[in-house]
């Protein structure tokens, strides 16, 4: 009797859930570790060292539009590539958000022509590979743009040629940073003023006009600072001198091809997100807003857009992440971003596997930082439900 109760309370080992759980996990861990160590041994056995000492060697390459010297280290070269990645990603994200939002709203326009044009834009670009967009922009520019000697100059703000582009920028003469500091202080003051005005509105009912007050503060600071610092920033206009562009922001064709290609592609996705998010706000919200007497503009600004924004934020950040990762497609048009530089370095005889692992590590850090921002934003924007 005693033995039979003992066996019934304890199932045999191979049917004991606790034993099975531990065994299965151990088996998976052992398999993962065994695979990794096998791969490592196999690499060593084939004379592939996972040694990162090459990062300190001379890179021996030059990169257009950077001050990288051939005597600089491999690490410096890859980090220069990373800077190009970040530049094109940031610029691309800003342009994509503006263009994507405009087209997303245009798709919901009451105007048939606008709606159709925006729809065609989205349906064409969304269904093409981003690599094709980049390569096509590059090829079309090569086939149709004039050489630098006959560059098109558009209103002193844009120089377009097949080898180089120039865009007007702000340049500073030493007092620039002081001016930026003044503007930053003014913005802080405007935010503080706005908060105070809103409190007053909540207490007394007098209209806050926070944007009006804030704008006035920033505008006044901008004018006074500009005069007091004796014109700290000036417009730097691009012009052609000899065989290159002088002044403004200079860009090579690969940079422009990657930027334009990715903006065209990603903005079509952002447009769909914007449209979907606006349509996803329940109709009842608009009707309720109309019922309490808000005008169409007020309904959009105070009721529909804030909610649509909340729905749209996570997928839009996802698209920003995609755009950042897609900058690596620049390899195809010889754009010197992280992967492109890594590829060049491998071509110069540096070890391939460690170099690619370094590049992957940099992309990993970049992506995870964007994800971190996304999660913080997501958390702050979350609707607190009862």
């Amino acid at each position, binding site marked *: 009797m005693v033995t039979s109760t003992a066996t019934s309370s304890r199932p045999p080992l191979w049917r004991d859930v606790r034993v099975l759980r531990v065994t299965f*996990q151990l088996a*998976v*861990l052992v398999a*993962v570790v065994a695979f990794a160590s096998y*791969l490592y041994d*196999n*690499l060593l*056995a*084939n004379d*592939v060292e996972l040694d990162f000492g090459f990062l300190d060697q001379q890179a021996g390459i030059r990169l257009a539009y950077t001050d990288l010297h051939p005597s600089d280290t491999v690490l410096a070269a890859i980090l220069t590539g990373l800077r190009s990645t970040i530049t094109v990603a940031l610029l691309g994200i800003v342009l994509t958000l503006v263009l994507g939002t405009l087209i997303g709203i245009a798709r919901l326009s*009451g*105007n*048939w*022509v*606008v709606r*159709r*044009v925006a729809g065609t834009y989205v*349906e064409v670009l*969304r*269904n*093409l*590979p*981003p*690599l*094709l967009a980049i390569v*096509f922009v590059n*090829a*079309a520019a*090569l*086939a149709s743009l004039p050489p630098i000697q006959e560059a098109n100059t558009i209103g002193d703000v844009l120089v377009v040629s097949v080898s180089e582009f120039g865009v007007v920028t702000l340049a500073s003469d030493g007092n620039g940073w002081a001016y930026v500091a003044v503007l930053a202080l003014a913005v802080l003051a405007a935010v503080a003023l706005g908060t105070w005005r809103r409190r007053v509105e909540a207490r007394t009912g007098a209209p806050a006009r926070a944007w009006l007050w804030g704008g006035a503060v920033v505008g006044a600071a901008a004018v006074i600072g500009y005069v007091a610092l004796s014109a700290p920033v000036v417009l730097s206009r691009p012009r052609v001198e000899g065989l290159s562009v002088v002044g403004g922001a200079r860009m090579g064709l690969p940079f422009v091809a990657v930027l334009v290609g990715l903006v065209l592609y990603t903005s079509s*996705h952002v447009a769909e*997100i914007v449209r*979907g*998010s606006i*349509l*996803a706000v329940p109709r009842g919200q608009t009707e309720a807003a109309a019922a309490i007497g808000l005008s169409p503009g007020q309904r959009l600004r105070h009721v529909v857009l804030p909610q649509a924004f909340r*729905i749209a934020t*996570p*997928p839009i*950040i*996802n698209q920003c992440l995609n755009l950042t*990762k*897609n900058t*690596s*497609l620049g390899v*195809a048009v010889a754009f010197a971003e992280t*992967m492109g530089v*890594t590829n060049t370095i491998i071509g110069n005889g540096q070890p391939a*596997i460690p170099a*690619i692992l370094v*590049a*992957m590590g940099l*992309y*990993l850090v970049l*992506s995870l930082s964007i*994800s*971190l921002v*996304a*999660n913080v934003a*997501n958390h702050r924007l979350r609707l607190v439900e009862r």
Partner: protein
Amino acid sequence: MEIATGTLAEPIAPPEPEPPRRDLTPAQWVRANLASTPLNVLLTVVVGLIAAWAAYRLLRWVFVTGDWAIVRVNLKLFMVGFYPADQLWRLWAAGYVMVAAVAFAGGAVTVAVRRPIEAVAGADTPGSTARPGAGRRVLDALHRFWPAVLGVIAILSFTRTLLPTIGVLGALVVGVVAAAAGTRTPARLRRWSPLIVVVGLIVALQIVIGGGDQTGWDDWGGLHLVVSATVAGIALAFPLGLLLALGRRSSLPAIRIVSTGYIEGFRAVPLVTLLFLGQYMIGFMFPNTIEPPSFLVRAVIAITLFEAAYIAEIVRGGLQAVPRGQVEAAQAIGLSPVGVMRLVVLPQALRAVIPAMVGQFISLFKDTSLLAIVGFFELIEVSDAVTKQDAFRGQGLRPLALAFVGLIYWAGCSTMSRESQRLERRLGVGER
């Protein structure tokens, strides 16, 4: 670090806003849609003029100024790369097998989806069960598949013999017949229809690589390479992604950590880096005694590992959407953990994520263009190679060749995306 895919997925856009049901006279329609306010009139004129100018330039480029000889002469390169001409029948045969298998399974699935809907809706829409006439059905099919039809017609317009056209028409007939056979399958056999696709895949693969070393995999090119890599990627990445998703939701901490690390790690790096790493490193994953896998196999492994992470997140979204009560009810009737997953959770989870999954397959199709970067004779690479031929060098023909490549990609992606939206509406995924 962890992103909830449930919220990251693109919001499901409801269908286009319906035009007002009232019958407007043309004048009323113009007033409502083009000229409701003075600003609107201006918008119509400005945007309309720009659009008309762009359309005129595009049409002129396509039909008047563009010299498409570069595509006409090199059509074989675009389609199959350097595949030996005397072995081409293998691709045709494999294509026929795949068309038949997919159409059969598609027919069976459609009827399985449609029956319950009609059973509910049949009462108040009496006309829905009556079969429309043949002409009407051809028109419907054209409307449904017009991007694919446009792509195929564009390709066929560049052929110099009638044979490819006859071949495509034959495939169309096979497809229609197989789909009709699929809809007539008895209900109890219908659940095996996905298996038909798997069998078709294996048979097609056998036909294509049956040529032995005459057709080395690394010499594959053009559309054939792209489609093969896409099919292989989907077939391999889907099971792996499913396992990873289950692993990430597992109650066993070690499994969860390994799966989560894999998913987040692979999602954080670009595919390009993985393709490069794969070309250099996958050879070392195998013992020195066997021959290292071919470059194409390495690329397909890299694509599979990458896409599996994304598919895992999509499946996880579906798993999260299955109410807990379903699991508890399944446990209450005494199903084993595997039974709960297989019979209750997965069917609901996978059904809910079909549209997102098709979206990921479209991404995979687009991502095969990256094969060009690691040196394969992919469509974009073909467009580069043909502009370096003696007859076409230095004439700025690359945009033209790329436009043809773009049309092929666009036709494929667009068709899949339209079908996924249609499926989404039929399944009513967005409405629950």
